[in-house]
């Protein structure tokens, strides 16, 4: 097999930060190579180095053939139609006009955009934009195609189509590099470069890495106290990793350790996943400090903390949210799952009073927050999708400010801040500007600011997108602990892994709630002879296809 690109000892620094550290690898033509790692691992820098947009500080890169590059935000012209965008890129690549119609027909067919030629690129969904971006990058077939996080903001259905497209390309002999923060995508690649903090942890087929934890993965089923089981098992020294998956708990044991026995539960071996292996490669950190106990929130008389009744939101003639109803019980973790643009953030914002409803009722703690007195908001904790802290203020100043506006003062304020600095390991960063923190710490600070005042209800908008698996586990440990104390949590996510942590899920697609239930109930809806043990993604795809046909 021919080599498309060779990296030897490549390094790149930005000021004191080492973005890419001594990476050597050879990528082959005709294969899909995954560039896998959390945000800030160095994926984009490595992509830009390979595309020749940056020069390496150390080492060298040799390219065999020409390169096509699709950056994270592909440069589509939103005010041009699909076919005008294609024509523009064809002309930029000086494609002969005679060749254009045949190539366009092939690309439109390939990307499934045939029926949308006259639609403005700006009016396409996230998934369709990525497909058009891919088509534009392919007008002149390159020998190596670099795709930087092509699946961000793409719904699972479109994501599968994108994967099918790149595998077709690989069969035609094109080398494809696909960068991603989603570990489940690694398993779809022929080869994986696993990055962590600029360093290369692993090169090779993903199965090679997964094989290392063969026989060490187990699932604990049965019983209603999965959170307790998760908490107990994660404290054991022989358990490397423990996380909630629907109603069960998934364990990765230390090398050679037998599976633990848990009273009243059934423990069974399961095939390993890429993430299980990844976790064992990362250095194990010290035990996660726990939040101090808090007063239990008063349980509402009907036991419902958040209620949406026939919520509708229209923007002009576009219906963003259409008759959505659900209820979050006190002490429950409820997830709103759906692709970007499906209407989950709109629902979320109506519930916390940031957006007026067109019709229907949004209640938190029995009150409509858009009209309730300010006091109603005192019981709410909110962490938005964007990192919404003051970047020019230090960590300590942000903590001072957010505790101050929730009315904390004097000794209580000082003690709470000290606890937060301790629990979220922010102490070394007290004087650092929030904007200069590493991503994981930004997220920690944002969570700390949202919970300092001890809210009864917590609203989290995409709380862990882009962070590495260890930080994600830490986050969920805190969220689970708060739920155990009776705090109700509403989470939005497009991240199917994250949805597994929720007690119940609502799936939103095109503004409608198309499914409601526990993760296992939702998975059961997709069970068939072809897929006896469906994942949440299988279920999601099946439900969306059903919703589209009806």
């Amino acid at each position, binding site marked *: 097999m021919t080599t498309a690109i060779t990296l030897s000892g490549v390094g790149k620094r930005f000021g004191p930060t080492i973005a890419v550290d001594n990476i050597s690898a050879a990528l082959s033509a005709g294969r899909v190579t995954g560039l896998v790692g959390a945000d800030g691992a160095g994926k984009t820098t490595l992509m830009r180095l390979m595309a020749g947009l940056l020069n390496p500080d150390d080492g060298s890169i040799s390219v065999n053939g020409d390169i096509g590059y699709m950056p994270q935000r592909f440069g589509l012209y939103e005010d041009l139609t699909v076919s005008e965008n294609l024509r523009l890129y064809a002309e930029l690549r000086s494609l002969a006009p005679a060749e254009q119609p045949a190539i366009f027909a092939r690309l439109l067919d390939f990307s499934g955009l045939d029926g949308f030629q006259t639609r403005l690129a700006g009016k396409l969904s996230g998934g369709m934009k990525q497909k058009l971006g891919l088509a534009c990058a392919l007008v002149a077939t390159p020998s190596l195609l670099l795709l930087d996080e092509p699946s961000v903001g793409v719904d699972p259905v479109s994501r599968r189509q994108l994967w099918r497209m790149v595998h077709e390309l690989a069969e035609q002999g094109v080398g494809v590099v696909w960068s991603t923060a989603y570990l489940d995508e690694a398993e779809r690649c022929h080869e994986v470069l696993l990055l962590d903090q600029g360093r290369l942890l692993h090169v090779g087929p993903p199965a090679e890495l997964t094989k290392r934890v063969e026989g060490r993965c187990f699932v604990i089923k049965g019983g209603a106290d999965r959170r307790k089981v998760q908490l107990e098992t994660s404290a054991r020294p022989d358990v490397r990793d423990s996380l909630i998956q629907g109603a069960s708990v998934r364990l990765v044991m230390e090398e050679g350790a037998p599976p633990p026995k848990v009273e009243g539960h059934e423990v069974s071996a399961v095939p390993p996943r890429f993430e299980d292996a990844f976790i064992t490669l990362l250095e194990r950190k010290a035990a996660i400090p726990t939040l101090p106990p808090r007063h239990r929130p008063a349980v509402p008389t009907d036991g419902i903390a958040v209620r949406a009744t026939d919520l509708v939101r229209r*923007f002009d003639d576009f219906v963003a949210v259409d008759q959505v109803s659900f209820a979050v019980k006190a002490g429950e973790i409820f997830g709103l799952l759906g692709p970007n643009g499906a209407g989950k953030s709109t629902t979320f*914002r109506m519930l*916390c*009073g*940031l*957006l007026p409803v067109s019709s229907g009722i949004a209640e938190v703690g029995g009150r409509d*927050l858009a009209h309730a007195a*300010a*006091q109603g*908001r*005192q019981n*709410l904790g*909110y962490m*938005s*999708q*964007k*990192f*919404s*802290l*003051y*970047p*020019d*203020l*230090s960590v300590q*100043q942000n903590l*001072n*400010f957010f*505790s*101050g*506006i*929730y*009315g904390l*003062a004097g000794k209580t304020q000082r003690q709470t801040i000290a606890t937060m600095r301790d629990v979220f390991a922010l102490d070394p960063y007290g004087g650092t*500007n929030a904007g200069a923190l590493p991503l994981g710490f930004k997220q920690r600070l944002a969570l700390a600011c949202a919970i300092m005042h001890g809210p009864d209800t917590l*609203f989290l908008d995409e709380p862990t997108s882009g962070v590495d698996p260890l930080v994600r586990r830490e986050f969920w440990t805190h969220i689970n602990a708060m739920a155990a104390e009776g705090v109700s949590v509403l989470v939005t996510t497009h991240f199917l892994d994250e949805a597994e942590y929720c007690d119940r899920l609502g799936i939103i697609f095109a503004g409608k709630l198309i499914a409601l239930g526990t993760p296992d109930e939702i998975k059961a809806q997709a069970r068939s002879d072809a897929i006896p043990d469906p994942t949440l993604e299988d279920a999601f795809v099946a439900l969306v296809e059903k919703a589209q046909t009806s």
Partner: protein
Amino acid sequence: MFGRIRALIIKELLAVWRDGKSRFVLIVPPLLQLAIFSYACTYDVKIASLAVLNQDGGLASHELVAAIAGAPAFSDIVAVNSENDMAAAIDSRRVMVALRIPQDFSRRVENGGGASIQIILDGRRSNSAQIVSGYLQNIITSHNHDLAPTTQVPVLVERSWFNPNLESLWVVVPGLVGVLTQVVALVVTALSVARERELGTFEQLLVTPLRPWEILIGKTTPALLIGVAESTIIIVAAQVWFKVPMTASALLVYAAVVAFLLSVIGVGLFISALSSTQQQAILGAFFYMVPTIILSGFATPVENMPDWMQTLTLANPVRHFLDLAWGLFLKGISPAQAWDSIWPMLVIAAITLTGSAWAFRRRLY
């Protein structure tokens, strides 16, 4: 409640101060502008150039030219020999004014029969030309007086109150107190909400127990503090550096500054609350700022404008403040007279501040 507002104010001041760029914007450009505008916006014509076409050549004409050349304003005198040369000198902006002394000038003076001379002004520079023409007339009048002392003709004796030497710095610098303070206060407030919208922190504020009026106070107070500090710097510079007298009490000056700042901050916050990006906010601020300065009387007197436009200027806080500023600096205005200009600014402030508190909860999507 007090604790919440205090947290907001501290945060707001820190946000401005810790960002090196916004710190720079608050300090350096206003001082530079003060220096530049003070020296640039002068109505005094200090060095005028004059062409002389002396077709006469007699004694009387030489005496007249010597009298003009002796005046400090005319340091540059160009002798030309023909009408064509004279026209060319004005055309090329070599001179602003030309003096033509006709052939029979000396003879007529000699005979005591009224002689005449011609002044040609460059109308493209109407303002300066008028001033220069005034200078020339003064010189010629006094020259006439020397030639033929007479007591029968009444003589005009000018006295300018409040600004005896008609120093234009004394007019421009108090005006700049208003203009520059407005720039700073408007930019600081226009950016404040829009910046938080861009960062997403404004939504974060709206889900806290803060009420819109608490956010309003939390946003107004820091801008007021910054604006007062800024205007203090300019007022001190006006007295120490530019030697403009200050005739009113400090108390009255600050009452005027605070009323003015409140009205400007109200406008700034309103623009900011309606903008979703900082770029929109800055464009909005400048779109508002330019007409308010033109309609303030800073460059051209409000009295020269058409009646309907004069009515329009009543809604312009800068116009009220400039009336006040000139009164405070030069005239020793009484508190009762000052109140006449202060209350309209307070009315504007009340309207715009209420409007922004209302707008905070609008435009959330």
